[in-house]
């Protein structure tokens, strides 16, 4: 670089430097805007989760790392740190559940899967969103869950619900949902991971991109686990043309053949 430059050269250099600074200042912001624009938003500017979603993970087979067995594929699991921190007695129950899983899993009755299992169960779920709430229709059992997003609070006189009571609020583009007042009748997966009615779930829903939801949940239950633990699961938007949920009331299978009446056979 010459020690002395012509004034014109210097102006050019300063201009170039300035333009780089300007670029450096705007580039990341620009990048964020570009990324942001890719996710769908409602009239209220909140991320719009409307659509039909399903995970490709094997979380429902076993939340923890698992090797292929007759009724499951291999998977690294979705639990942060790998293992669920069971209390000793609860771990014994979990082992019993695993042994009895072909008869004891509530899924086998067609029962509502609960939270968070219904989210990562391998069947589609449809999210219907409006400012005051998000309604989730699960294909399995056609269970309907409401996440209230209207600044309302958990009720004072709760029942123990299969799906708990869900109250959500927005933290930036993340929907944070506090879920409690559960019963103890659902499982967390088909390997017998379970909870008590003290279950408390905090979900974090975020659109990773227009067609992917990053779903995180913190699971807490003082009767079963030694500390809260976290899972991360991704849900993918169904891309098939004209895709739709198909009702699933399999709990009627035991008796549905008796209807409707048919003409007597001669």
């Amino acid at each position: 670089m010459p020690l002395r430059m012509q004034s014109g050269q210097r102006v050019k250099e300063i201009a170039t430097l300035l333009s780089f600074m300007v670029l450096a200042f705007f580039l990341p912001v620009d990048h964020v805007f570009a990324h942001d624009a890719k996710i769908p938003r409602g009239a209220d500017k909140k991320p719009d989760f409307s659509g039909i979603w399903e995970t490709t993970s094997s979380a429902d087979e076993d939340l923890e790392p698992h090797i292929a067995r007759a009724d499951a594929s291999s998977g690294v699991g979705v639990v942060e740190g790998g293992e669920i921190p069971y209390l000793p007695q609860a771990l014994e129950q979990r082992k019993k559940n695993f042994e009895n899983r072909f008869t004891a899993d509530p899924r086998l009755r067609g029962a509502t899967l609960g939270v968070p299992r219904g989210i990562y169960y391998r069947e589609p779920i449809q999210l219907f969103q409006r400012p005051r709430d998000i309604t989730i229709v699960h294909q399995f059992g056609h269970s309907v869950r409401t996440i209230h997003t209207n600044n309302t609070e958990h009720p004072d006189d709760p029942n123990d619900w299969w799906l708990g009571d869900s109250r959500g609020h927005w933290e930036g583009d993340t929907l944070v949902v506090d879920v409690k007042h559960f019963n103890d009748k659902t499982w967390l997966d088909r390997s017998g991971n379970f909870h008590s009615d003290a279950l408390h779930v905090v979900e974090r829903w975020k659109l990773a991109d227009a067609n992917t939801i990053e779903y995180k949940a913190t699971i807490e239950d003082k009767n079963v686990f030694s500390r809260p633990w976290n899972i991360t699961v991704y849900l993918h938007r169904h891309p098939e043309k004209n895709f739709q949920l198909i009702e699933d009331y399999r709990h009627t299978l035991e008796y549905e053949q008796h209807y409707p009446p048919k003409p007597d056979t001669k």
Partner: protein
Amino acid sequence: MNHMIKHGIKRFSGYSSIFLALCAMAASESSLAADEAKSKAQPVAATPVVTPPGQTRIARETSFPKLVSGKWSGPRLPDGQPDISGLWSNTIGNHSNLEDPQAGVIYEARKKPLGPREERAPSRISDPQDGKFPFQPWAKEKVEQFRIGFHNPTNPGHVEPNARCAPGGVPKSFYWHGYDILQYPGYVLFVFDNGSRIIHLDNKPHLPSKLKLWNGDSRGHWEGNTLVVDVSNHNGKALFGRSGEFVSENATIKEKYIFSDDGKRFNYEGTFDDPTIYTRPFTITIPAIKYTEAEDSDGWNLEARWAKTKTSAKYLEHDERICFENNGGFGLGATDTPQVLVK
């Protein structure tokens, strides 16, 4: 039913003595849910059919206004749909008896004789004019067997499937408990106590015809104040009520939901065409009313409650709708829920 147990014990237990006192006073047919309660072989003691003092509850209409399809001049949602979202209920009676909706369950002993027919709401059959289902003889006989068997079932088909928490189906879901109508771009969503219906407004093709469903597969569109819905893939398994009428899986069903301009009412007009069972098409008309903030829960038609808020905003919200999971069979021949369905 879980909601009876749930509300009866948890929410309405304080009213059980009022219930018993009012039961003695009330004519059996004067309460929407009384027919329901007394027909249960395994009733819950404190069936929550009583409106607590100071609350209003829906009137049991003996007549209702005719609504005509036409322009919609009420409020619209951003996507252009007439805004009719909310909690809705039937107004003239439940599922006991379709041809005489306020006469109670057929072949059930009555405490006092019925008055003249014109004192009660009309048949839900608005066409044919005589208010009767135009059954083929064999089907009429089957329905008669059901009406007798209903009180002492001698085969599993005498159990009304809804009593085992099967979906109420089309059209019965509209004259059972209250229900939610929710609207989204491209969809109208009905959420009933037993089952839900997603009405697709985008004209996508129906599901493959071999898939038969309790609630069928619905495609709809708005014509002014009227939601017009075509229901296919219907499995015919959900009986129309305790009077046992039904269609087969061959039925075509065209529905019109005609809304009043003030958004407070609609009339459902469902036309069923099923040459397997009937001699001609027929139309079922069901009046419905929307709940406003003036009403409070009556535990049957409106089971919602006020959300807890820190502000003055008022929101009606509904408990999760769960049925068979919470129940064993509850009488009339219904058995316990299956323990294991698949392996």
